[in-house]
Each structure stands twice: as C-alpha cells, then as structure tokens.
C-alpha cells in the first residue's frame, strides 16, 4: 500500500487544473497549498484542507454524512439505465455502465435519501461525480423527480446537492428531457410552498445547472466550484480568447447575482438548517417514551 498517493485526476473532469477528489492512501498532497495532509485529518475535516480550506471533491454518500444527523433511508436505489439508444462511441455505453457500476457500487449518479438535518425531516438528493461525471440521464432525472414528488407528499423540504458535468450524451434527447421533467416537478413544489435548497459543488455544469441547480429558493455553493452552462473550452472557442481568472467559479456567480451565498462545507449544514427554519420547516416530532405513547393511544379511544 502506498504511503503517499497523489490526488488522482478524475476522468473527464471539466476542471483539469483542480484534481480534487479525496484520494486513497494515508497521506495526501493538497492541490491548494501543496502541504502534505494526513488523510484521516482530511476526512475528519469533511474533505476540506485544514491548512488552506481547499475543498476536495467528495462522493454522494460522504456528502450525506456531512449533512444528515445520523442514519438515513435510501430510496429508488435499484433504478438502472437500459441503454435506450443502444449507444456506442469508442466503446458501448452498456460496457461503460457495467464498469462504472462495479467501480462505484452504485447503479447511477445520484443517491436519494430521507433523513434528518439538524432535527428537520428532509428529502435529499446528492449527485455522484464518480459515476460517468455525475451526468444526468434518465435514471438521475427519474430519481430526482421522484425525490421532488416525495417531498411534496411528505410536505418536507427538498435539498439537491449537484455535482455533474451535465446531461448524459449517451442517452441523447431523453437525457435532455430530464431537465424538463425535473423542472416540471419543481414547479409543483414551488406552488406548494415547500422549501427547495440547491447546493452547487465542483463541478455543476450544462443541463444540470440549466435546470434544477439554478431553481433553488436559495442557491448555495461551495467555494471555488466550477459552475456554468457552457464548458470553458466551448466558450474560449466561441470568443477566441482566454477566459478571465475565476470565470465560472462560485465567487463569480455570487458577484453576478446567481447565488445567494458561497458556503464553506463545514458551515453548510448549519446554513441549510437556518434557511429551512426561515422557510417554516418544522422540527421532526421527538419520539415519545413508550408510556407516553400508550397514554396517547388510550386517550384516542373514548
């Protein structure tokens, strides 16, 4: 086992200058400050460099751990893509899916769960970048749409943590339509006056940004996350010049009015909790002691 491992470059990263997934190995070199960090310290610090606050990319399950109080229940876990287009590029999409499922232990790029955030019952969806760049295909769209409908049924707040390169090309126009599907569900959540907090992390681009990620009642982002519609390279080709430093980073979006707040990961949970309380989210009922519960049942029967 390696004592020291360089942070691996994520595949198809849209921010090649910032390899930042929490790496394996005992020690890690921070791309932000070049310091060597003990991996356990990094984990304890929610994947944020204790020296310079560089935010390493974290997975969907780690994300839920940073936001929820304790256990959670996962939903719609078994939904999987059937490769409706029978898509093949340099290799069949079917093979790509199989390998990715094996490597991640997941069936697609989002985890939907119900749990408690600072004592508040919430429905939460967290995207997984390790699953084909967190791309949104039919399964991601379906699971997020179901998460929205679940929030509606339970009358609970919805939180979506985005981490995605955008729509999944290998599912063609069907993946494009997921933008419409999720946004339609969010229209109903909006009309029902239920809170939706959108959390944007590095990276959030393309069809994910241009649908649910920008539709939060509040949009929160982690520091220095790449957030945009078109990829930086596409824009450079269009305008034929280098993009300014910090373009399409969280702070740039905040400055241009697209975000409410740039929030350090270590403050994210508390910030969301305050937001949800403003939005009238009620604390989950404290489970009653057995005696009290029995009394309540008795009193219901005349």
């Amino acid at each position, binding site marked *: 086992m390696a004592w020291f491992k360089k942070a691996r470059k994520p595949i198809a990263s849209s921010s090649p200058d910032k390899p930042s997934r929490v790496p394996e190995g005992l020690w890690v070199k921070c791309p932000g400050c070049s310091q060597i960090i003990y991996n356990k310290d990094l984990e304890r610090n929610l994947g944020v460099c204790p020296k310079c606050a560089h935010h390493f990319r974290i997975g969907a399950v780690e994300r839920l751990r940073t936001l929820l109080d304790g256990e959670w229940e996962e939903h719609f876990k078994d939904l999987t893509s059937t490769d*409706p*287009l029978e898509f093949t590029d340099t290799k069949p999409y079917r093979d790509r899916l199989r390998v990715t499922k094996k490597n991640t232990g997941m069936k697609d790029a989002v985890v939907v769960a119900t749990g408690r955030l600072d004592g508040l019952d919430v429905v939460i969806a967290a995207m997984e970048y390790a699953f084909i760049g967190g791309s949104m*295909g039919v399964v991601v769209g*379906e699971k997020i749409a179901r998460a929205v409908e679940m929030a509606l049924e339970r009358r609970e707040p919805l939180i979506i943590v985005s981490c995605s390169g955008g729509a999944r090309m290998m*599912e063609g*126009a069907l993946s494009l339509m997921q933008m419409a*599907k999720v946004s339609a569900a969010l*229209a109903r959540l909006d009309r029902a006056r239920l809170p939706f907090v959108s959390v944007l992390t590095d990276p959030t681009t393309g069809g994910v940004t241009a*649908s649910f990620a920008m539709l939060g009642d509040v949009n929160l982002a982690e520091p220095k996350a790449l957030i945009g519609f078109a990829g930086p390279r596409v*824009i450079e080709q269009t305008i034929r010049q280098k993009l300014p430093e910090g373009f399409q980073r969280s702070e740039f979006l905040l400055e241009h009015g697209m975000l409410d707040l740039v929030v350090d990961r270590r403050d994210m949970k508390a910030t969301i909790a305050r937001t949800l309380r403003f939005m009238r989210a009620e604390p989950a009922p404290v489970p009653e002691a057995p005696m009290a519960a029995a009394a309540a049942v008795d009193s219901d029967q005349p």
Partner: protein
Amino acid sequence: MPPDTLEFEEPIAVLLKEVEALSMLPQTPERQQSIEGLYRRIESIRADLYARLTPWQRVLVARHPQRPTVLDYVDRLFTDFTEISGDRRFADDHAIVAGFARYKDEHVLVVGHHKGSGGDTKQKVYRNFGYAKPEGYRKALRALKLAEKFGRPVVAFIDTPAAYPGVESEERGISEAIAYNLREMAALDTPIVVVVHGEGGSGGALGIAIGDRILMHEFAIYSVIPPEGCAAILWRDSGRKVQAAEALKLTAPDLLGFGVIDEIVPEPTGGAHTNHELAAALLDGPLQRALSSVGALDSVTRLEARYQKFRAMGSVGIAES
C-alpha cells in the same frame, strides 16, 4: 433561384449546372424539352435521396441556410403579426422573436428562435445566428406570461444551434434563464403547441419548447448536443460527427419512437427549404389539429396531461434491478 445544394446533393448540383448552361443559349423547343427533362430527373433524384436520408444528412438539411424561419411560417399561416420586444431587464435579443398574431381567426402568441436563415451575413449577425442569450429566454417568458394572462394559446417555433456560449451569457445567467423557463412553462396555464422545425439544439431549444403537443418536422433534428461536440468529447475527434449523428438518435422518427415528440410534420420532397409555400401548407393541418385538441381541454386536465407527458420522458430507458 434554386436553393443552395448540400454536399450529398452533388448529382442534383451537376444537373442544375446543365440546366443553367442550356438556359443561357437561345431557346428552341428542343432545348426547352431538354430543360424540362433535366428538371424531371432532378425531381426524381431528389425524391430518391430524401427518401433515405442518413442522420448526418438530416443535420445538414435541418441547418440549410434557406430553411424557413419562424417569420416565414408567420407570413404564410398567420395574420396581423405584431412583434413585441425586450425582456424589461437588460436588452432585446433578436435571436428569439415574439409577437401577437392571428391564426384561423384566433389570437395566438408566437415565439421562436430566428437564425437569420435566408438572409445575408448582416441579417445572420443581427440574429446572432439563432444563439439566444439570457435576455432572449426572458423576453420569451415575458411574452408567455402575457399569453397566460389574457388566455391566448401559444405556438413556439424551435430552431437554434444552442444557447449562446459566451462570457456575457454566463454573466447574465443563461442557466437560470433556461431553468426558470422550463419550470414556468411546465405550469403556464394556457395551451402551448411546440413546432421543432429546424435545429433543436439542446437546452437552448428546450428553453422555449415545453408544451402540450410537440410537433417536429420530417427532416428537423433535436439533440442533447451537436454531433460535432459529441464526437469531440466521446471520440476525441470532431470528424466523427457522422457517427455521432447516428448514435445520438436525433431524427424525427427516432424521437417519435422514444415519445419525445408527438407527431411528425411532413416536408416537401427535398426539404422545407426547396418550397416555403408548400412547407407552410403542410404544417397548417397538423398545427390546427394540435391547437384545437389541446384547446378543447380544461385547464386542470391540460396541465396535468402536460405534467405527465414530461414526467414520463425517459421511462422507456429505465429498469429496476
């Protein structure tokens, strides 16, 4: 003047040159006959070519520089067009047109992308080649809300390569503009018929393409990404665009099969660009039927059906394992 020929129409281009050469000579009954014969051959070759277009050839047809624009259809099928402008926030975006019009004596709102097709370079630049910026989507939504407020149905014409991928688009929130339109159009309380008549370029197209009925022209395309972009990313070679066009399943018959669209609008043999009059006439029936069928529904039923329509999209590609 005949429309520009595309690369796969080379046999037609050759015959057109012959016609041109013959037309320059003094006319005789024999020459006249030869010209007519050539035209018949052109028609037969064209019919043959267009009966079995490949996906990439459809991309070329959908992007044809003389493809009819939203205003070409408005001129031929609508009356009393009154264009409205501006998003009341920043600017007027000429890549999206909006206006009041009458269709079969009914007042309707028309919105649509405009690439400047059929015009010169100056007109294309004026339309930004159909690449809309945030203000375009916000103008469209402002117009859509007027249609809702006054209970007028909407006809949306879709023809754009993409939303404008530039610095100012990002600065002014192109993502938010599209996202907000998707959400608001899903719940807009008035009938909406969408006509994808040219290039349905990803989010930029979708941003004004939520509706109760989605019509799509025979040779139009609708895609999550342009084939060139897809090839550049997945094959790392934009030259693989022909393969990418096949893989993306972006043609009208494919999308009808997937339930992304409801109906295919036939085009003149050789594509809508060869005959704008006929193209408009062929749209008239399907458009009228679509408007009257969604117009017959009450609000609650129509909005629920619209929701379920988009809610079901992609279900064909999902299994539980």
